[in-house]
């Protein structure tokens, strides 16, 4: 119909997973593996397999560069597996009997994955993820699934993306991410926020042409494909205004934040892995309000031993130079399954997750407790228990900490008891915080609190509209907890995504919070929002909402 005309503008909207702007070509991330074409002879299949395994080993070795020591040691294990001829030899035997390289490798590795999965030992069970990763990498190369290079600065479109895929990309040249499904609280969204890479989730399954010019405005939640002059101009203006605001805010990022009427507000950072601290000057924040430990347990990493955990915790404590570091005990389950630890359930968000799982599997929790106790003398360590819903869970956890401390003392190993507090994310805690008096501090997890208060699963993109921490019911509960903390002299902070959103910061301050823990890339914007707020402006804000 319009053969000569410019292609039509396509406008897709999604939810902001990480704010920012990107302009560049669309890159469709290889979605389904194409089918493998048999090469016709055993010799050709053998050569194809050897080449694919060598290429996978080379890519694995490349990905080790620039990783910190613990991440590199995990990749080193995968590399050693790829360089070992055992799997290749077993595959070649199958190829000789007439099977393709693809089917031979898939079968050999499937058997190995199953074998690890069937192990009684959780450490070995967790290795099945590594084997599956090795299997898929070679199969992808055999089918050419990963051969298209990503153009610099591209806006990558995929259904969803694994954290390891995200980390394997070179984001130094900019670019952005638009996921068709996905969730703002998924691990890849967290990583995008922490690295300051603009990202949208839930853009839907409309047609997106590969390599088309596109503009990603992850602040307004829009992806424009084939933009016309008008939309380009608008994009440039919005981006310019946002950058000017960010530059103005960035000038004061190294100073503590206080409200316009002079009340000090602690602005801390959330970190997902110890390597994150290398990108954050400690002078820009008031410590760590949330250090996740799932990275140690997740995916290809397997269940970490005490020394691995201790290394990770010490790295952050040393960087923090005496400022508080709040480490959350393993928060597996829900949307964060860990092989060898979590249990398959029909309704995981209401199931065995967080502290429930740790208390159900004390042999794994005790390893983490020992590492935390040993790290404690080296800084201002606080430990935070996730998903507490009744006071008895704190008592049980404190008993385990006491037992392990006694064990370390008996062996003459240096250790100290950290402050132990809890996350406030289950409504039972937010409604009656005074019952949880054994917690040394309270930290509100607004993402989970919101999903439990509004009964809207946070991993369901279709329920996005029901996932706002600005909901009056959620804000009321935050106010209840803040008021209890102020009356009882217990520190209350908020470490959910709401704290990282400058538009929500005024509401949180108005609810009484004075400690926020935010994505590192949002430090400047949050501090600017704090400085703009005062008790008098709060009245106006509340009147408007």
């Amino acid at each position, binding site marked *: 119909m319009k053969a000569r005309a410019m292609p039509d503008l396509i406008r897709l909207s999604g939810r902001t997973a990480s704010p920012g702007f990107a302009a560049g070509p669309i890159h469709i991330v290889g979605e389904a593996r194409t089918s493998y074409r048999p090469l016709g002879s055993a010799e050709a299949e053998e050569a194809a397999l050897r080449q694919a395994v060598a290429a996978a080993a080379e890519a694995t070795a490349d990905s080790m560069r620039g990783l910190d020591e613990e991440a590199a040691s995990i990749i080193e294990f995968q590399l*050693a597996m790829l360089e070992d001829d*055992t799997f290749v030899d077993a595959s070649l035997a199958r190829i000789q009997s007439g099977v393709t390289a693809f089917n031979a490798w898939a079968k050999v590795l499937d058997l190995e994955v199953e074998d690890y999965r069937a192990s009684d030992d959780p450490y*070995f069970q967790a290795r099945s993820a590594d084997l599956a990763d090795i299997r898929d990498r070679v199969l992808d190369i055999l089918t050419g699934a990963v051969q298209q290079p990503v153009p610099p600065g591209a806006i990558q479109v995929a259904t969803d993306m694994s954290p390891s895929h995200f980390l394997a990309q070179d984001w130094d040249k900019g670019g952005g991410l638009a996921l068709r499904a996905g969730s703002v609280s998924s691990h890849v969204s967290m990583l995008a926020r922490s690295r300051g890479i603009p990202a949208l989730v839930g853009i839907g399954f409309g047609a997106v042409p590969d390599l088309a010019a596109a503009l990603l405005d992850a602040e307004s939640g829009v992806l424009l494909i084939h933009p016309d002059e008008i939309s380009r101009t608008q994009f440039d203006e919005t981006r310019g205004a946002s950058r000017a605001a960010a530059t103005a805010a960035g000038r004061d990022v190294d100073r503590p934040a206080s409200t316009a009427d002079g009340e000090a507000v602690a602005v801390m950072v959330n970190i997902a892995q110890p390597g994150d601290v290398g990108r954050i000057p400690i002078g820009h924040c008031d410590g760590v309000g949330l250090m996740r430990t799932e990275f140690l347990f997740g995916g290809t990493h397997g269940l970490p031993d005490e020394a691995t955990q201790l290394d990770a915790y010490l790295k952050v404590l040393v960087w923090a130079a005496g400022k508080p570091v709040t480490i959350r005990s393993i928060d597996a389950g829900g949307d964060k399954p860990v092989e060898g630890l979590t249990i398959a359930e029909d309704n995981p968000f209401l199931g065995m997750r967080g502290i429930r799982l740790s208390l159900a599997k004390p042999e794994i929790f005790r390893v983490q407790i020992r590492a935390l106790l040993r*790290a404690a003398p080296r800084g201002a360590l606080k430990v935070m228990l996730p998903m507490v819903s009744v006071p008895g869970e704190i008592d049980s956890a404190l008993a385990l900490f006491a037992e392990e401390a006694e064990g370390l003392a008996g062996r003459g190993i240096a250790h100290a008891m950290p402050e132990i507090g809890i996350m406030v994310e289950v409504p039972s805690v937010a409604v009656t915080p005074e019952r949880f008096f054994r917690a040394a501090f309270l930290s509100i997890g607004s993402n989970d609190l919101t999903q439990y208060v509004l009964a809207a699963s946070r991993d369901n993109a279709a329920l996005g509209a029901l996932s706002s921490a600005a909901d009056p019911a959620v804000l009321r509960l935050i106010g209840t907890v803040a008021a209890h903390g102020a009356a009882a002299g217990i520190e209350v902070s908020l470490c959910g995504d709401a704290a990282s959103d400058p538009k929500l910061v005024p509401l949180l301050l108005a609810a009484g919070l004075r400690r926020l823990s935010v994505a590192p890339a949002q430090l400047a914007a949050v501090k600017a929002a704090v400085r703009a707020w005062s008790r008098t402006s709060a009245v106006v804000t509340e009147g408007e909402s």
Partner: protein
Amino acid sequence: MTGFATAEVIISNDVGLHARPSVKFTKLAKLYPCSVEIALSSEGPWLNAKSIVKVMGAKAPKGTRILLRASGDQSGEAVAALRALVERHFDEGQGDAGPDQA
């Protein structure tokens, strides 16, 4: 010097012969020209100690007794070095007197 050497050792680190320990174990075994094998019982099967797939495949948790045997040049040194690595908890820093070395 050509020869034959055997030893046995108990895996005493918390996580057993899992990923990082296996990488260290096989890397060390590969430094020696002799053949080196491990087994979980004297009836075998004997597994190539230079193959991480085989060594990890043994899935030896904490408390497992493993048997080592080597034949060929430097077999004595190979067995002694591998036994010492296991006894040192694969240098994973576990059970030491404090976090200082971490």
